[in-house]
């Protein structure tokens, strides 16, 4: 629970910048913090409710929120007054530990935990040996630390379904690989700096691979043509990310047999 004085101190640190013709960026202090991120998501929801059809999109990240809006459809002062009040007025700042004033959707996302089965075996965990060496831990300790922690989903980005999870225990934190791989396999569970994530598709990547999940990171409906689909409301049904921003995530260590029975594939690195 935050004290009132700390709250107002926090709010004065939120900055507002109109960075593009149709975008305003809100920035919080540069840190990975669940309470702060809850406030970011609260602001996201408030902004969406206020702007309605003037809103184009609203994207939350670790310590920032961008609001894309139809600038020709709203007075600058109207938007600015609303945003200043949103970030300055303490009565508008819901107590971050209680989600009572949030919408039901935000509420249910905030309170849900998703478990991701991971096979940490060396056959798929291409970098677990070097991670253990560099962190001066045993492979077992790396697995234990990674799977013990409950993470928060801070942002979706990089590639569809790629969800940034934080924070990684301090003992596991390493800089990105000095030269990124051209191809990281689909389902790779990886770490870098304060973050961990799962690669939803085969793609280039510079994070350390410590495991593999057989779980799909998104569901895409490729059959419907959605001829009439013009607004964002319909879009969520066409693409669903397995992990949603704001959700809690835990990795569960599974055996090779379990991994294979869940449809996992052993992918060797071609060197």
């Amino acid at each position, binding site marked *: 629970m935050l004290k009132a004085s700390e709250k107002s101190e926090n709010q004065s640190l939120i*900055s507002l*910048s*109109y*960075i*593009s*013709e*149709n*975008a305003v*960026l809100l*920035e919080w202090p*540069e*840190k*990975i913090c669940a309470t702060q991120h809850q406030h970011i998501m609260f602001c996201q929801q408030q902004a969406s409710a206020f702007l309605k059809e003037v809103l*184009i*999109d*609203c*994207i*939350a*990240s*670790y*310590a*920032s*929120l*961008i609001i*894309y809006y139809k*600038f*020709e459809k709203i007075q600058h002062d109207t938007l600015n007054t609303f945003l200043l009040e949103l970030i300055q007025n303490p009565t508008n700042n819901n107590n971050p530990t209680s989600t009572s004033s949030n919408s039901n959707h935000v509420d249910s996302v905030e309170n849900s935990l998703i478990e991701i089965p991971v096979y940490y075996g060396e056959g798929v965990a291409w970098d677990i040996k070097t991670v253990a060496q560099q962190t001066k831990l045993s492979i077992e300790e790396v697995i234990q630390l990674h799977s013990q922690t409950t993470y928060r989903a801070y*942002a*979706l*980005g*990089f*590639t*569809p*379904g*790629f969800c*940034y999870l934080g924070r990684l225990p301090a003992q596991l934190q390493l800089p990105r690989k000095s030269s990124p791989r051209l191809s990281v396999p689909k389902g790779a569970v990886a770490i870098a700096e304060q973050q961990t994530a799962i690669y939803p*598709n085969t793609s280039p990547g510079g994070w350390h691979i410590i495991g593999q999940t057989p779980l799909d990171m998104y569901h*895409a409906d*490729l059959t419907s*043509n*959605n*001829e009439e*689909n*013009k*607004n*964002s409301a*319909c*879009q*969520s049904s*066409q*693409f669903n*990310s397995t992990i949603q*921003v704001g959700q809690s995530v835990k990795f569960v260590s599974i055996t090779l047999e379990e991994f294979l029975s869940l449809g996992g594939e052993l992918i060797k690195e071609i060197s």
Partner: protein
Amino acid sequence: MSAKPKNHLTVIKQNGFCSVQDLGRMSSQHLGFSASGAADEYAFLYANYLLFLAQKLFQPCVQLNRHLTHNLNQAQLEITLGQITFKAEQNCTIAITGADCSVSINDKPVNNWQIHHVKTHDIIHFSQPKMGLHSYLGVAGGIQNKQWLGSRSQTSTEKGLGFNNAPADTISLNYRIPLAEHCNINDRNKEHYNLTSTIPASGRFDLEQASKVAFAQKQLTPSTFYKELNKPLTLRFIPQSLWHSFAKKQQTAFCKHQFTISADSNRMGYRLSETPDDITSSMSNTQSKLSKPVTFGTIQIPSKNQPIVLMKERQTIGGYPVLGSVIQTDLFKLSQLRPGNKIQFSPTTLSFAQQQLSAFHQKFCFSI
């Protein structure tokens, strides 16, 4: 749900890159999807506007889409560096804009920035343009590939994922590009129409509409920019706090510096030549930060001192230090420049950028 389209253009020769584009998917960035969309919105909207006027002129009785903006979002082919040949499988009405590819129909040269009527088995050929990058081929009724997240834009990073058209999400040799049922709006068998000089002579028009169309035609002259694509371009940008933290001297040096567009530039971003150390050293020394949302035109300063300007296929969030955002009406121009072309930066204000973009929108959304 409509039946499988019968009308097609077939790709019979291809050396360059070609994709289907509309105005993209601005509302799916929260899912991690690039906004994507036509690189040069000026040439794109111009082509759709030509088709719209042609429809008004030649099919005045047909009830058109009430929503002009929806009509202006019709998907087209974005042809990069020309070198592609199509065969028409039926009569259709096309518009050609953007980089001048010396387009020919059955080996007969035709004008850029104009509407043309194409007959069954006609061959439409795009040569490599002498200047510029992207050309647009619009067809009446729009390209009818599969919609994904409310858009038909094909995005290179999503190649093979089956979002816009299974299996490859890309246009290649022998590909049959699906067209709308009413892809032909010509009922007079004229080969091409110069909308900027042709005033319809027909008793079928009501006077009011004819005068409105005539007015719209007068407004329509392609920007002289397309004849000056090798000239250095000044990119006006809305500065962010990093810019304001610099000394006046440093800001002046940055704006005086002429950058060269690097070879590794594409639809995602334009990489620029390295800046002299004294200009941007303090910019990139600012620590790599937590990823935050980035926009169309964001100027990133990564560690190698090579600024990157983010374009239509940009990612949604990024961690490099940010100097500001290039205004959108300058980005459409930038998208036509090639590696080796020169650019400079100049700071401007949000209100100027918004005025420019509003004027740009009004040019093509002129109520008719």
